[in-house]
Every structure is written in structure tokens, then in C-alpha cells.
């Protein structure tokens, strides 16, 4: 199977190279009109078919690796290092992306799959798709070259073949790890598609904004995958690392967050291009940057440039990525300089207080946040270069610099939708902002009364202060968005006689993109509320003998037993803790510590009881070597479940935004446009 997999990879590389070269030649011939032995259209079509065949070849290679894992083919080095016989089936799949070679193969396979779909849909616009397909083939050539020559997944083991493998990294043996990396990779790789369309459209001086509309679904779905990937990663860190937190500003986490920020900026600013023909150069560079940041993220994860708590697969392929990033950047700069005349804006901003300027500021803040994270991630390298010694840029830096920026962004999330396109009046501003401002101050008062006081006991707590601001701004943003829904739904309700719920449903269906966007904003607000809760985390640690108790918040934990268990994959120690509240027993928790047989590494399995107010999070830290008693650490983490619920709302909002709106003809049957227009600005597609 190793031979078959290697052969598939070589064939895939050859096909991708043909796709790139033949595609480029065909497009050159088409552009210049030069005579050729073969018609450029036919040549371009052979390139497209080579791309499709390439996907089949990469699929063959991926299948070969998965097959090798399932058949315990320990003649392959990768399988020895990342699997073992006792590994559960779901984690055998995870072995595909648990190591560097496998994860690069996954990248190539996903890129092939995206390219496959794109090439099947080529009739939408044959020439633009040919350009995009050629650019994707260029990216694919790089990844397949790395897989074939620098990090071959089918490299054979030297020496005697062992009976069993080293097993999967215990940190990865958790259900989320079966879906978190593919989600993240779908996000990373997916941004290749809008990048390819943007670069292709610029190369061919594509008229209008059609490429943006074509790639809108791609971009949103990609953004959704990346969002889910990031949140799943947070949940994995929360449930597996056992430190009670979910985000540690680790370089690998930062690497996934940076393209998300630029991708989010792109999703907002393309609306300016679609509606007003503005910010064309900006948008092109946003998507170029996003793609480059996905490569940088992979470089940071793989090359070991910066120390990370979960850089699983470090090696020397960093040079390959640096060279490729330089090539991509050079191509982008050259194409932009050569074709920048095509990107002249059609309109200009008419007012500082308008939807357009809010998008500008939104982009400004998102990119500043991206810069801060990039700067913090790379500063240790810079410091080492300048001063000869490394420094650490950890959470205190980001909390002090990035959190205020995040709160400002949250503020813009609420302000932006309240501003109309082009310009507004002072009266309109007052009308739109009264309710949110009232909500903001009401929340400040509620928080202070509830004890969220940054100055309690004469000491200032920056965490509580940020939480107070976060809660207050969240209340304002939520009020602003709900008011938008109610204003529009109220008009429909009056005109059609529907109840408010049905009117809201119709309103959303009439402009899914706008109201789906609002739902995403609501999801962001809910997640931010959850994040603010971390300012009030509490924890207590204690050695717990039989029947000894521990109290945290309203809960009392009683140790009713500590035992051991084992299976072929791991042995474990765990404590059984009865949890009671107000003297009444509620449930039992069993925090666990595992020791994996194959790798010999320990792993924490945290017990979590989640309710909307907080998470009771219990860690079995091990046993005291002197007394043999288990050491238990319990956390009470407020509002954590809001973060995950925020993701659910964001996913729902994205799906709503992806559904086509009711066509004007259908909508007109429900609400006559002439009636709605003068009184319902919310109904006019964002005007």
C-alpha cells in the first residue's frame, strides 16, 4: 500500500504541474490571440481535467494512508509513530492528521476536493474558473512537492518492523480531535479558493464584482469552518489540557485566529465593493493577506519558529513554506502593480458617519487586532535577533493590548448596523442610539449591583473592569440588533397582520444576508459574554482522602472513592466525587488521569458539569506520592457555556445568510414594496 500511495502522490504532482503549466499556456494564448497547434480552449479543458484527475490521485494516496493505519502496516514510519494496534477506530482516522506528513496530505486532499468542485462548476464562467483553477493548481504543486520530497507520508521504516506502534499523542485522543483539525484545515484550505478567484480576476482584468458574488458562498462557508475549528480547538484545550482555560494566546492558537480576523474583515468590506464599487484594492489585499496568513499559520505550527504548547509536528519544512510565501507574495505584488488600474474605485465616501465608514473602521480594528497578534507571536524572534535573547510574549501582553481592541470591535458591531449607507442625520443617530445607550448604562448598574465591581476592596481589577465594559457593550449591541429586527418586523406585522414572530421570520427571509449577519453578530455577543465570565473564575485545590470534602461556590464535593482501571490502550486512575448543593446530592463526577500504554504518556480527562451560570470543572491532578491520596483541583468558571452557545448561534446565522433571499417577485406577493419602502428602511436590503 505504501508503494501505491507514493505512486498516487507522484501522479498527483505530475497532474497538478500539468494543470498549472497547460492552464497558464492556454490562458496566455487566449489573452494574446496567438496561433497554436492546439486550440487554447481544448488545452485549457485538458488542464481542467488534469485537475480533476489529480484529486482522484490524492484521494488514492489519502485512502492508502488510512488503509495502512487500519491494517497496522508498521513498515511505514508514519504509522509506527502515530498509531498502534489498540488505538480506537475513530482515532485511527485522526492519525491521518496527527503528524506532519499526514496533515500535509490532508491539506492537499482538501485542496484537491475544493479544486474538484470548482472545476466541475466551470460553466459558470469558463475563463474565470480556468484562471482560478490554474492558481489552485499552483498551490497544489507546492503542497504535493513538499509531500513527495520533504515530508513523505509513505516513507518506509529502516530496520526491523516493530510489532506495535508508538500510538497517537494522548492529547489528540479526545473526540473533538476527530473533527477539530479537519474543520480548521477546511477553513485554512478554503481561503485558497477566494484567493484564487481574486488573483485570477485581477490577472484577467475581470469586469465588475461577479467574482465576489461567485466566491461569496465559498468565503462564508470557509469562514464558518475556520470559526468552528477555532471554537472546537478552544473546547478541546478546555477539556483536555486541564488548566481551566480555553485560550492561552499560544502561537498555534494565534495562527488560526489571524486569518479569521482578516477573513472577517474581507467579508465585511466586500459589501462595500458589491454595493458601492469601493475598496477594490483593499479587498484584493485582504484576501491575499488571509491566504498568506493561512500559510504563515502552517509555517508556525510546523517549523518550530516559536515555542508552543501544542505544536505537534515540528520539522525543517519551514524553509519550503518561507520560499513559497515569498513566491506568492511576489506574484500578488506583481499582478497588483501591473493591473492596479483595473481596481479604481467607482464611488467615494460621502460621510464620516455612515455604514461605509463603519466598515472602514471595522476593517481598521480587525487588522489592528491581527497586527497585534502577529506582532506578539513574532516578537520573540525579533527580540532574539536584535538582543540575542528570547523573551516571552504571553497572555499578559495580549490581555492588555488585544482585549481593549476587541471591546472596541464589539462596540463597532453594534454601531455599524445602526448607520445607514451614504450619510445620516443627527436626528436619525439619536433615534437609533437611544435604546442601546440606555441598555448600556442599565447593564452597568445591574453589574455593579450584582458585584461586578472593578474597585472592590480598594483594589483595581483590570479583569473585572474589562468584564464590566464587555457586559455593558454587549447589552447595547444586543439591544441595537434586536431593535433592528423589531423595527422591520413591526412594519411587516402592521401591513400583513402577521404576528411579530411570523413577521420576523418573513423579514429575515426577505434579506437573509442582512439578518443572517445580525444573527452572527448576536452569536458573537453571546460568546463575548461568555468570555467576560473568565474574569470571575475561581479554583481550589486539595488532597482528598475518602469522605473528605471540598467546597467551591455553591457546590460541595465529597470523595466517595478512588479507583483504577485499564484497557489495551491505557490504564487510568480516577476519583468518584459526589457533588451536592445546599445539602442535596446532585450528581457524581469522575475526573480521571490516564496513562497510555503505547506512548507511556499521561493525560488528564477533566470532569465538567455545565449549566448556564457556570461550569464546575474538576481535574484529577494525580496522587500525593507520600500519602497516596488523590489531589483534586476544582474550578468554578462562570458563563463558559455561553461561548459554545454563541458558536451555535453564529453557525445558525451563517446558514441563514447562505440561504437565498426571497426574490423580489415572491416578496412582493407578501408585502407590496411600495407600501413598505417609505416606512421600513430595514426592508430595503440594507439601505
Amino acid at each position, binding site marked *: 500500500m505504501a508503494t501505491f500511495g507514493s505512486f498516487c502522490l507522484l501522479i498527483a504532482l505530475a497532474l497538478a504541474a500539468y494543470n498549472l503549466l497547460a492552464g497558464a499556456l492556454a490562458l496566455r494564448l487566449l489573452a494574446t490571440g496567438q496561433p497554436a497547434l492546439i486550440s487554447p480552449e481544448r488545452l485549457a479543458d485538458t488542464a481542467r481535467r488534469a485537475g480533476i484527475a489529480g484529486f482522484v490521485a490524492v484521494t488514492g494516496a489519502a485512502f492508502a494512508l488510512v488503509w495502512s493505519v487500519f491494517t497496522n502496516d508498521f513498515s511505514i514510519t508514519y504509522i509506527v509513530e502515530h498509531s498502534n494496534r489498540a488505538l480506537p477506530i475513530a482515532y485511527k482516522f485522526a492519525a491521518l492528521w496527527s503528524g506532519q506528513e499526514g496533515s500535509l496530505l490532508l491539506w492537499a486532499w482538501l485542496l484537491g476536493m475544493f479544486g474538484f468542485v470548482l472545476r466541475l462548476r466551470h460553466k459558470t464562467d469558463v475563463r474565470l474558473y480556468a484562471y482560478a483553477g490554474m492558481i489552485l493548481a499552483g498551490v497544489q504543486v507546492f503542497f504535493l512537492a513538499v509531500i513527495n520530497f520533504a515530508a513523505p507520508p509513505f516513507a518506509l521504516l529502516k530496520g526491523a518492523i516493530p510489532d506495535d506502534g508508538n500510538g497517537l499523542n494522548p492529547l489528540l485522543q479526545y473526540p473533538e480531535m476527530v473533527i477539530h483539525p479537519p474543520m480548521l484545515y477546511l477553513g485554512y484550505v478554503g481561503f485558497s479558493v477566494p484567493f484564487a478567484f481574486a488573483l485570477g480576476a485581477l490577472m484577467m482584468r475581470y*469586469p*465588475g*464584482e*461577479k467574482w465576489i*458574488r461567485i466566491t461569496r458562498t465559498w468565503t462564508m462557508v470557509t469562514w464558518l469552518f475556520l470559526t468552528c475549528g477555532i471554537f472546537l480547538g478552544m473546547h478541546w484545550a478546555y477539556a483536555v489540557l*486541564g488548566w*481551566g*482555560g480555553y485560550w*492561552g494566546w*499560544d502561537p498555534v492558537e494565534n495562527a488560526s485566529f489571524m486569518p479569521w480576523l482578516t477573513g472577517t474583515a474581507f467579508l465585511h468590506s466586500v459589501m462595500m465593493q458589491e454595493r458601492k464599487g469601493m475598496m477594490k484594492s483593499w479587498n484584493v489585499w485582504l484576501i491575499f493577506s488571509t491566504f498568506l496568513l493561512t500559510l504563515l499559520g502552517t509555517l508556525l505550527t510546523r517549523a518550530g519558529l516559536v*515555542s*508552543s*504548547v501544542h505544536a505537534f509536528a515540528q520539522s525543517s519544512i519551514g524553509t519550503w513554506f518561507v520560499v513559497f510565501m515569498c513566491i506568492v507574495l511576489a506574484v500578488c505584488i506583481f499582478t497588483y502593480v501591473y493591473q492596479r488600474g483595473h481596481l479604481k*474605485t*467607482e464611488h*467615494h*465616501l460621502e*460621510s*464620516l458617519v455612515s*455604514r461605509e*465608514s463603519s466598515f*472602514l473602521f471595522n476593517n*481598521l480594528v480587525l487588522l*489592528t487586532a491581527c*497586527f497585534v497578534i502577529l*506582532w*506578539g507571536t513574532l516578537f520573540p524572534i525579533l*527580540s532574539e535577533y*536584535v*538582543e540575542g*535573547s*528570547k*523573551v*516571552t*510574549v*504571553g*497572555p*499578559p*501582553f495580549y490581555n*492588555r*493590548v488585544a482585549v481593549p*481592541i476587541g471591546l472596541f470591535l464589539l462596540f463597532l458591531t453594534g454601531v455599524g*448596523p445602526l448607520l445607514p449607507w451614504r450619510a445620516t442625520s443627527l436626528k436619525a443617530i439619536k433615534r437609533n442610539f437611544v435604546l442601546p445607550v440606555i441598555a448600556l448604562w442599565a447593564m452597568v448598574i445591574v453589574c455593579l449591583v450584582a458585584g461586578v465591581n472593578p*474597585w472592590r476592596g480598594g*483594589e*483595581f481589577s*483590570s479583569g473585572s*473592569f474589562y468584564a464590566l465594559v464587555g457586559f455593558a457593550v454587549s447589552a447595547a449591541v444586543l439591544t441595537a440588533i434586536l431593535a433592528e429586527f423589531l423595527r422591520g418586523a413591526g412594519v411587516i406585522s402592521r401591513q400583513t397582520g402577521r404576528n411579530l414572530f411570523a413577521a420576523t421570520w418573513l423579514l429575515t427571509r426577505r*434579506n437573509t*444576508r*442582512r439578518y443572517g449577519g445580525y444573527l452572527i453578530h448576536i452569536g458573537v455577543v453571546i460568546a463575548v459574554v461568555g468570555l467576560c465570565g473568565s474574569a470571575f473564575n475561581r479554583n481550589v485545590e486539595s488532597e482528598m482522602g475518602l469522605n473528605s470534602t471540598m467546597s467551591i461556590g455553591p457546590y460541595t464535593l465529597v470523595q466517595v472513592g478512588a479507583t483504577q482501571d485499564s484497557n489495551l490502550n491505557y490504564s487510568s486512575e480516577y476519583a468518584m466525587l459526589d457533588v451536592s448543593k445546599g445539602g442535596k446530592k446532585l450528581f457524581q463526577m469522575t475526573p480521571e*488521569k490516564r496513562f497510555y500504554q503505547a506512548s507511556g504518556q499521561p493525560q488528564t480527562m477533566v470532569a465538567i458539569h455545565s449549566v448556564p451560570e457556570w461550569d464546575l470543572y474538576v*481535574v484529577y*491532578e*494525580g496522587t500525593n506520592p507520600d500519602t497516596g491520596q488523590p489531589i483534586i*483541583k476544582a474550578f468554578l468558571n462562570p458563563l463558559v457555556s455561553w461561548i459554545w452557545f454563541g458558536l451555535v448561534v453564529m453557525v445558525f446565522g451563517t446558514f441563514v445568510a447562505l440561504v*437565498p433571499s426571497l426574490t423580489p417577485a415572491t416578496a412582493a406577493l407578501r408585502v407590496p414594496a411600495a407600501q413598505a419602502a417609505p416606512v421600513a428602511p430595514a426592508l*430595503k*436590503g*440594507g439601505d
Partner: protein
Amino acid sequence: MATRLRFAFWTRAVEVTVLAVAICFSLGASNPSGRLNDLDHRLMCTCGCAQILGECNHVGCTESTQELTELKADIAAGMGDRQILSAFVAKYGATVLAAPPAHGFDLVAWIAPFAVFAAALLGTILLIRRWGGLGGKPQAAVATDPAVLDPEERERLQRIRRETGSDGGF
């Protein structure tokens, strides 16, 4: 008169807000447990786990236990925050600090984000001003403005928009 009063009110409000924020940020933790919690979140565990000292929970991590013991001893000995941090840097190296110190070259780490934000903000305002959004002169229509495009090109653009459809957006 009313405008002047309103202006004075807003000026005073801004002054009070700035003062309040400044006071907030100038206040510091003073009790020993607060100081321990503050300091162990400004230091890293040196075992290579890349975690904050106060949050390192590795089983049998001797480094974090030793560091915490030293930290408690330093606090009990009445050492100031700066003295304690310097002692840790002298013993474990600069990477023991969870954030770059605010002096020397490392000060750049703190200044750069705000400098970039200020520059970007200024750039955005200048851009808007150049476009005429802040009372500046609007630029002359460029060749791609639909109004100055030739009819054939305009029809082509309109046809593309019709064919691809637009549902308005935000």
C-alpha cells in the same frame, strides 16, 4: 450659548472619564494573596510547557512548585514586585517573564501596536477626508464610474449584475 454649555459639558465629561480610567489603572494590588496571584500570572513555568506559572498543572512538575515556593518566600521577605521579577530573570532568564519588560528594545513590543493603530486611524481619517467625507473636496469621477463609462461597457456591467443577482446585503 447653548452650544457653548453643551461643549463645556462634554469636555468635562471626557475629563472625568479620562481621570477615572487613569485612577483605575494606577491602582495596584497590595495584599499578599492578591500579589501572589498577580505575580504568578506575570511569570512562566520554566519546564517547557509554555504555561503561565499560576496555571501550570503538570503532574509532578517540579519547576512550577519550586518557582511558586520561591515566589512566596520573596513576597514574605517583603521584596517589591520589581525586585522579585528581577530575581527571577537573573535566575531563570528573560523568558520567565510572561510579557516583555517595558524598557529597552522590548518597549517596542508595547509601543508598536498602539503606534500602528494610531497611524491606521489617522490614515483612515485622511482617506475619508480625501474622499470628501469630512468636508474635503470629492475626487473627480474616475473612468470606471458608471456615469462616465461608454454605453457598451455600462450595459455589460449591468448585465453581469443582473445575471449574478444581488440580494442587497447588509
